């Protein structure tokens, strides 16, 4: 893999008391600037931090608990993580919908977490070990590529070698991808070559290219760790002449093989691939299914997903309620995955009063991913509040991820179904066990 570069970070530890708000704001602003955000982006990050810190002080950690704040640059983004031990929390207030008033009558401006999310590109709430963490993520601003009219020549060489690209080669790779593929087939970062270079330098993303003897680029592939155990593959992108399919296929296969070989001895146990074209991947990947989503302009986009295991599969336990048993059986049969499906049910045992949902809002894609962090008797109301909020925010694509390796998470499946979610896909080993994706329907405009 491309060698990761150690990146600098800053951190402070403060008491959850709003008298320290100026300290926190100054820290976040100065850190953001030092870590590479431009002035406007740093101010937005500061604004989001202000809302978040006030919310934590006044609602979440009312007993003067301690908050760790860490700002770090991950190549193309700056991230501010606010973390604290879960024991000090008013758990209910950890939901993004937390407000002093009922949602129906609440002033959205009092919902500080949602306010914070508006100023950044992504807001993530997650539980990590015995800590709860809210992350604010802001992308650096990069100039968009301005391509000339002339399309680069297709790659016609039969000889090529696989290499890690230099920064200049990465930029040329991005140009080739924009030239040979429609905009809706490629991730946004290929429109911003500088961003691509920083993503690779940041160490989370990796890239390889197929290069001819004179340095010409015939194709490329990018990948990164999506979760602790899953690698996401982006590509391969091939720049051959459509009349000479054999070299093109060879390049695609060589790039995929090199990528798989690189990942083969890492911690990843599965790869998920969203290829830009159909039909040439079944030798390496297995078809998982597709998800329809809606772009900001209302256009429906269909995204097919493929996967492969990196290691031998020794099976795993899947906790689920009987409502989705048919879906599970059919999907696992189609994928030849052996699973020990165990039933989980609400048998009336006493629960916490309040549930907590993790929210990952991706405003760039008008998408939100939900997960349950803490079970509680109010889950139905809580989920309903979240869905109302997303509707108000105009977020059309709502996915709920259930980690079927954790029994109490699967116990909320009936609640999801009741609220309009349907199981659509299984991501093998994407969590403690397989992650079952539920999509909210109807999801269109």
């Amino acid at each position: 893999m491309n060698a990761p570069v150690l990146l600098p970070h800053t951190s402070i530890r403060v008491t959850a008391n709003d008298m320290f708000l100026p300290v926190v704001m100054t820290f976040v602003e100065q850190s953001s600037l030092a870590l590479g955000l431009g002035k406007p982006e740093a101010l937005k990050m500061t604004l989001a931090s202000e809302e978040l810190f006030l919310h934590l002080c006044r609602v979440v950690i009312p007993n003067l608990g301690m908050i760790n704040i860490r700002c770090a640059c991950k190549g193309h983004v700056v991230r501010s993580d606010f973390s604290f031990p879960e024991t000090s929390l008013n758990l209910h207030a950890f939901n993004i919908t937390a407000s002093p008033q009922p949602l129906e009558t609440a002033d959205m401006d009092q919902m500080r977490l949602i306010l914070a999310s508006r100023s950044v590109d992504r807001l993530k709430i997650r539980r990590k070990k015995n800590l709860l963490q809210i992350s604010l993520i802001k992308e650096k601003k990069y100039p968009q590529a301005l391509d000339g009219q002339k399309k680069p020549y297709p790659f016609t060489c039969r000889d090529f070698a696989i290499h890690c690209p230099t920064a200049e080669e990465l930029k040329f790779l991005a140009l080739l991808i924009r030239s040979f593929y429609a905009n809706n087939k490629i991730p946004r970062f290929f429109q911003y070559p500088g961003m691509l270079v920083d993503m690779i330098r940041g160490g989370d993303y990796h890239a390889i290219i197929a290069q001819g003897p004179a340095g010409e680029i015939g194709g490329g592939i990018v990948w990164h760790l999506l979760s602790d155990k899953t690698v996401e593959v982006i590509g391969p992108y091939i720049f051959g002449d459509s009349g000479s399919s054999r070299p093109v296929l060879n390049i695609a296969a060589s790039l995929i093989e090199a990528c798989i070989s690189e990942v083969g001895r890492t911690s990843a146990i599965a790869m998920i691939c969203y290829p830009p074209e159909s039909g040439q991947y079944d030798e390496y990947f297995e078809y998982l299914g597709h998800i329809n989503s809606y772009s900001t302009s209302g256009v429906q986009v269909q995204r097919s997903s493929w996967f492969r295991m990196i290691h031998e599969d020794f099976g795993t336990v899947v906790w689920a309620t009987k409502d989705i048993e048919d879906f599970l059986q059919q999907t696992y049969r189609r994928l030849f995955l052996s699973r020990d499906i165990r039933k989980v049910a609400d048998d009336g045992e006493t629960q916490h009063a309040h549930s907590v949902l993790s929210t990952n809002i991706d405003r760039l894609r008008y998408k939100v991913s939900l997960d349950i962090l803490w079970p509680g008797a109010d889950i139905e109301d809580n989920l309903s509040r979240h869905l109302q909020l997303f509707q108000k925010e105009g977020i059309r694509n709502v996915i709920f991820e259930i980690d079927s390796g954790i029994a109490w998470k699967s116990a909320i499946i009936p609640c999801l179904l009741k609220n309009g979610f349907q199981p659509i896909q299984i991501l093998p080993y994407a969590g403690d066990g397989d992650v079952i994706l539920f999509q909210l329907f109807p999801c269109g405009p």
Partner: protein
Amino acid sequence: MKQPVSFQHLAPDYIQRFEAYIPSKPDDELKRLFGCSHLFRLNNNENPLGPCLSAARMISSFVPSQASIYPSGDCWLLRQKLAEKHGMDPNQFLFGNGANEVIAFVIKAFCQKGDNIITADKTFAVYEWVAEFSGIEARRVPLKDYGFDDDEMIRVIDDHTKILFVCNPNNPTGTYWDSGKLRGFLNRINGRRIVVVDEAYCEFVEKPDFPDSMSMIAEYPNLVVFRTFSKMHALAGLRIGYLAGSSEAVDIIRRTCVVYSVNTLAQAAALAVLEDNGEHVQQTRDLVRRQKQVLTEYLANWGLQFLSGEGNFIMIRLPMSDSLAYRRLMMQGVMIRTMTGFRFPNWIRVTIALPDAMDSFMTGLNNILKT
């Protein structure tokens, strides 16, 4: 809910980065999971004939009361026997709980932070793993024509290189360095680094130009040879392997050796193997030769690419993900080894076994290739 506890901050970076190897579950559990009534294990290159008759007798005659007594801490009898067999000194041998343990002995003995070892990118992974979880850099040289690339291994040596690992014959490709090539390599290294030659599969090799590395130790004091009783000698379940080297090299390695790690039964069975008349080795070689012939003809009929070199295994390239092939074969009661972890995506490695197991594998492969 239970409060999670984390000790991550106590672990060195190189341990935090390292992912634990997950061995397969017990057969009964796998059969239940995959819904199969039988299971042919063609994944670990075990010898389906079992141990030789004398070792089998030794195992079945093991007296339970011996279990309460510590074993010989340094496998004294075994070292005497090997010394006698190879005309060497008993102090030139060190035993471990499987050859995997002796890999750790050597790396711990010679490497410290900042050092590196050199091996191939597509070979037995444990050299690389032990180095990495010991905080030592593992430099991986790409195979050349599926074999270890001597020129490139020498090219990547630097001042911090301590050990070069050569798997001979190579697992999983079955290629090997002949006598001339190994000697040439050792000459070029010129005693400046430790050269480990792992001969886990040497007993399967019938080629006359395969090196007699034990006899080369006298000439090359930096040469360390690994052998195991797990493969040809079918004592994998007892975990016993050893290394041999010059007294000077072994004297250093012994300092990192955990004594008493080889149990009494393993020592007794291994001793019986060393005293065996060699008939078992010949029977195994005959079986491997015959079944390789059957399998390679079958693979050629399907037009599948394969590598059939030295050792009791064959590598096969499939037109599908190797992990999918694994699952589909498991559902038919056949367990193979996927090769993505060896950096050979879509290849599988199949152990050569008895005819019923090989038939079952070929039938299973037919089924998945047809659909």
